C-alpha cells in the first residue's frame, strides 16, 4: 500500500486555547519504517497522535500551526474518519476496545472506516475486508479462539492484540501505536513487539509511542525524543541508544563518558514560529539533570 511518507511539520497544538502542548514539532515516518517517539509523561506524545488522527476536538484541543501530510495528501483539519480513509489509523492508549461488543464485532467495527474509501467498490471492499480479517487472525490466532467473547473479558495483552487487530482491519498504510506495551507483563510486551515487527515486514509503516525506551529503540529505525512539547533529540535509533543523554534519561543507564551524539536540530526551524517565540528552546548542550543519573 504505497502512500508515501507521513510528514509532520512545525506542528503546534494547544488545549482550550491556553495550554500549549506541542511547539513546532516536526518528524517523518518514511514509508515502510518504524519510527519511535519517546518522552516523559506530559511531553505531548499522545497529543501528537491526536493531532495526526484529528481527535483533538474531543479534548478541546486544536492545531494552531503546522501541517500533517501523508505523501502529498494533507491530513490537517480532516475529520477522524477521513484520516482513517486516507490510510492512517491509530491504536489509542489504554487499548480502548469496545468491551461490550464481542471480539468479532470489534474487528467488524475496525473495518467500517475502510468503507469510506472511494477507490474500492463494494465487492472489492468485502473481499479486502475478508483478507484483512485473515491477516489479523493469522497475526493473533487467539482472537479467532475468542471471537464470540465480549472484549471486556479478555486479558490486558489480548485486549492490546484486539486493539491492534481492530486497527489493521482498516488496512492502514501507517499505523499509530500509543503505548502498546503499557501495563503488560514483560513476556506479553515482547510478543507485542514481535507483532509490531511482523506488521512492519508486511509493508505497514508504524509510528510507535512507547514508555519502554529500550524496546522502542530496538524496534525502530529512527526515534524522536519529546520534551515539554518539543523535539529535544532525534536521530537513528541505534545512535540514540548509544547516546549518553538518552541512556541516562530513558534507559536508566549511567555512564560518565562525555556528551556524544544526536542533538536536536529540529527545534531550530520552530524558532521562526510566532507561537513558539519566547519559549525556551531545546538547546544542544543541555546539561543532563542530576536527578536522572543514578
Amino acid at each position, binding site marked *: 500500500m504505497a502512500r508515501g511518507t507521513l510528514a509532520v511539520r512545525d506542528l503546534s497544538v494547544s488545549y482550550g486555547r491556553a495550554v500549549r502542548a506541542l511547539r513546532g514539532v516536526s518528524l517523518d515516518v518514511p514509508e515502510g519504517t518504524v519510527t519511535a517517539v519517546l518522552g516523559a509523561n506530559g511531553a505531548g506524545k499522545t497529543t501528537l497522535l491526536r493531532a495526526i488522527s484529528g481527535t483533538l476536538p474531543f479534548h478541546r484541543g486544536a492545531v494552531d500551526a503546522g501541517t500533517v501530510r501523508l505523501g502529498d495528501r494533507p491530513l490537517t483539519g480532516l475529520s477522524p*474518519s477521513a484520516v482513517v*480513509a486516507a490510510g492512517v489509523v*491509530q491504536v*489509542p492508549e489504554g487499548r480502548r476496545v*469496545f*468491551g*461490550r*461488543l464481542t471480539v468479532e464485532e470489534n474487528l467488524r467495527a*475496525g473495518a*467500517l472506516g475502510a468503507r469510506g474509501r472511494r477507490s474500492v467498490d463494494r465487492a472489492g471492499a468485502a473481499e479486502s475486508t475478508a483478507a484483512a480479517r485473515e491477516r489479523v487472525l493469522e497475526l493473533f490466532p487467539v482472537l479467532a479462539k475468542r471471537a464470540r467473547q465480549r472484549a471486556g473479558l479478555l486479558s490486558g495483552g489480548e485486549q492490546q492484540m484486539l486493539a491492534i487487530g481492530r486497527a489493521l482491519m482498516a488496512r492502514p498504510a501507517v499505523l499509530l501505536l500509543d503505548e502498546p506495551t503499557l501495563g503488560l507483563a514483560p513476556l506479553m510486551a515482547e510478543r507485542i513487539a514481535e507483532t509490531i515487527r511482523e506488521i512492519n515486514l508486511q509493508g505497514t509503516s508504524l509510528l510507535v509511542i512507547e514508555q519502554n525506551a529500550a524496546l522502542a529503540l530496538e524496534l525502530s529505525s529512527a526515534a524522536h525524543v519529546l520534551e515539554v512539547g518539543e523535539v529535544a533529540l532525534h536521530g537513528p535509533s541505534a545512535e540514540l541508544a548509544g547516546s549518553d543523554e538518552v541512556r541516562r534519561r530513558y534507559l536508566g543507564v549511567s555512564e560518565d563518558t562525555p556528551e556524544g551524539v544526536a542533538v536536536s536540530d529540529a527545534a531550530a526551524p520552530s524558532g521562526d514560529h510566532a507561537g513558539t517565540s519566547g519559549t525556551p528552546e531545546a538547546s544542544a548542550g543541555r546539561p543532563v539533570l542530576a536527578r536522572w543519573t543514578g
Partner: protein
Amino acid sequence: MSTFVELVVNGVSVGAVYALIALGFVIIFKATEVVNFAHASLLLVGGYVTAVLHDDIGFLPALGAGIGTAALAGALIEVLVLRRARVENHAVLAIVTIGVDIMMTTELTRRIGTEVLSLGDPWQSRIVTIGGVGIAETRIAALAVASLLITAFLLAFRYTPWGVAMRAAAEDGEAAALMGIRLTRVSLGAWAVAGALAAVAALFLTVFPTPGLDRSTSFAAMKAFPAAILGGLDSTTGALAGGLIVGLTESLVTGYQGQLDFMGRGAGDVAPFLVMLLVLLVRPAGLFGTRELSRV
C-alpha cells in the same frame, strides 16, 4: 378469567407500542447521551401527518408519509439544534430538547385544535373473539407490527454495519471515531430511526379504543418515559421490558380498578410511575442499565 386474559393481551399490546417509543428514546440516548424530551412531539408530528393525509392518498401511503416526516423531523432536530449547540454538558442539550418539544407541541396543538382526528386505519372498531375472549383487531395489529419492528430493529442493531457502528459509538465515541466511524452519521441515524418508530407508535396509540389523535396524545406518549427509565436508559432490552411492564401495569390496574378502590380513580395512569419508582429504589440504573463487568 376471561377478563384477565383480555387485560393481559391488551396490556402486552399497548406495552409493545410503548416499547417502540422507549426504544427510540434509548437509541438516541445511547448514540448521543441526550435525554430526548422532544420525543412526544416527534410522535405527534408523525400522527398528525398521517391523519391529515389519509383521506387523500389512502391509509398506507399516509402512514408512510407520517413515518417519513417524523424521521425527517428527528434528523432536523439533530442537525439544526443539537449539532450546532457546542456544549459539553449533555444535560444542557436535554433542556434544549424540552424547548424544541414545547415549540413543536404548541404548533401542533394549534393545528389540531379541539378536533379528534382519525388516522384512517383499516381495523376500525372490529373485535375478534378467540376462545371466548374478545380482542380488538387494532390490539392484535399493534402487537404484530410492534413485534415485527422491534425484531427487525434488534437484528439490525446486532448484525448490520449500522448496528455495529452504533454500538461502538455508544460505548466509546472517541475510539469509534479512531476506527473511522462517523459519529455525526450515527447520531443522525439514531434520531431518524427514533422518529420513524415514534410515528408508528402514534398510529397504535390513537386507534380503537382510543377515539383518535388529539392534543392529549402526547401525554399518552409520555408513558414511554417510565418505560425507558425503569428498563435502564442505555439498554434496548430494558426498553422492551420497560414497555411491557408499563403496558401491563396500566392495563391491569385500570381493569381491576373496582378492586383497587383505595388507590382512587385514574390509578391506571399513575401506576406505571409507581412501578418506576419502586424499580429505581431497588435498581437505580434501571432493570437492565447495568455496569458491565470488565477486566482491565
